């Protein structure tokens, strides 16, 4: 999902369809999209229709499922908020300051995108378990970060960090220094300049990054299941509920919960698209 605001020279493209291949490429795009994405996703709706409304409602609002929603949404929200704070900090430091090893740190930000989730999961577990590198020092202090909801939050922070950094970074890079200079000349303190001048200009990007990290966290499975402990009612995430129902051959029940998740992620996708459009207008405004 790109966050790059691009002023497309749309109007200039007057003599349309001079280039060949429109029918071929659009046809193939729609064919492949239908085959891989749309038809399989529609199976989810049709399968759900085999349930009566009461059955559907019972499947998606059972106490164990409700507990899973609470955990998934709660942990995703906390993780996305943490990522907003630290993602902004990392992006700020990478754009505004120079320090030794900056290039490496910059490259490392994308690690959660590149590292398979299962690897992240077992590695975070190895660190935070009672006998792990970090866990052995925290557990005597009464801080338990593995095999409970805390672990879920940690894994989701790991997964979501690059979304915030990579959406805020280009906006910070393009920010006009003249505005900050003007603010300083007019007597603003540096903090006032940040809250009144810089922050408003990066707020749309920050919100987009938050929504992306949140959306990714809702559906995340691989990194979470190792560290969560997966206790029903306590540390069982929604995707795991789907897996559990599938393993009991409760296909309709699994599908019903999956449909709830799908509808939610589709709504989030629309929200993210709207945010990006807002961001484009926002950054494009002065030009």
């Amino acid at each position: 999902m790109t966050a790059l605001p691009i002023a497309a020279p749309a109007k200039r493209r007057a003599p349309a369809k001079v280039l060949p291949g429109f029918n071929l490429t659009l046809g193939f795009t729609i064919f492949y999209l239908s085959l891989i994405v749309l038809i399989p996703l529609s199976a989810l709706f049709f399968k759900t229709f085999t349930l009566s409304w009461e059955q559907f409602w019972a499947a998606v609002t059972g106490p164990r499922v409700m507990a899973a929603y609470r955990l998934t949404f709660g942990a995703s929200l906390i993780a996305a908020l943490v990522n907003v704070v630290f993602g902004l900090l990392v992006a700020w430091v990478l754009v505004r300051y120079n320090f030794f090893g900056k290039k490496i740190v910059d490259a490392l930000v994308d690690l959660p995108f590149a590292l398979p989730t299962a690897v992240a999961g077992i590695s975070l577990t190895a660190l935070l378990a009672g006998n792990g590198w970090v866990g052995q020092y925290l557990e005597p202090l009464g801080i338990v970060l593995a095999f409970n909801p805390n672990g879920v939050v940690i894994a989701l922070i790991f997964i979501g960090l690059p979304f915030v950094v990579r959406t805020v970074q280009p906006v910070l890079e393009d920010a006009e220094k003249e505005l900050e200079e003007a603010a300083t000349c007019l007597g603003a303190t540096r903090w006032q300049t940040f809250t009144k001048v810089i922050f408003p200009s990066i707020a749309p990007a920050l919100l987009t990054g938050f929504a992306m990290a949140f959306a990714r966290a809702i559906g995340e499975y691989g990194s979470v299941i190792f560290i969560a402990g997966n206790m029903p009612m306590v540390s069982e995430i929604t995707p795991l509920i789907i897996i559990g129902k599938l393993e009991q051959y409760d296909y309709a029940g699994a599908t019903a919960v999956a449909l709830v998740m799908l509808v939610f992620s589709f709504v989030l996708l629309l929200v993210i698209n709207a945010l990006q459009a807002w961001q484009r207008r926002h950054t494009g405004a002065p030009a």
Partner: protein
Amino acid sequence: MSANTSARRAQAGTTEPTWVRYSLIGIALVFMFLFLVLPLAAVFTEALRKGFGAYVEALNEPDAWSAIRLTLITAAIAVPLNLVFGVAAAWAIAKYEFKGKAFLTTLVDLPFSVSPVVAGLIYVLMFGAQGWFGPWLQAHDIKIVFAVPGIVLATVFVTFPFIARELIPLMQAQGNDEEQAAIVLGATGWQTFWYVTLPNIKWGLIYGVILCNARAMGEFGAVSVVSGHIRGQTNTMPLHVEILYNEYQSVAAFAVASLLALLALVTLVIKSVIEWRHEQDMKAAADIPPERPLASTPGAIV
């Protein structure tokens, strides 16, 4: 010199006191160390916990080999398929105006926002024993779910948008002028693509391919649902890691995981090199006064 000092004075108004700067850098680095460096280091340390011999032994095992083979096969099918799709979709979306373009772009993005578990589930609903095509497939003795084709399909789904998402903004920013010139001068559509468009988008293309490949090799959730976890047959590397880990074979699990972590590191290095090369290209192009805004960096992210 005077320009230099005045520049420095101007900068003083737009930066923070030294102690603030160093504190912010410090906090950011500590955060990055705790959340990114430490987990990465833990993978290799745990893999080598019992020495290099045990590490090699853990990898040199038929099930591990078959997992590696299956992962490579899956990526070798999924990435080219999505590459062809990505180029076709970007050509259609970036080069033309048509009704429903924004909606189509949203649909291309859709697999990113679907939970991997749901992605796996939809193929079980299509091709599983109780699925739409289940009875027909059984009658013809074709296995898709709990077999390799299902794994490939689920991987294609989760890596679906990667290359298209890189290419669409890049090709939109470049516009159609060069291609139109080529067509007017008598080039065929294929020649135009090969000699005009492709050189312009090559960095974005490679960038998309390596990200797509990293995800294809590392996908866990979607593949886990459709795989059936048959050792030596339908286990990809991430699934093999899970099985070993759940069997408390920690060294073996982390040994396989370390290969995937290496893949991630290689991906990051290639990605940085591409970004650097692209910057060089941009700088070289900036020396010549550009007639139109240049393409954006391939900094788009998944």
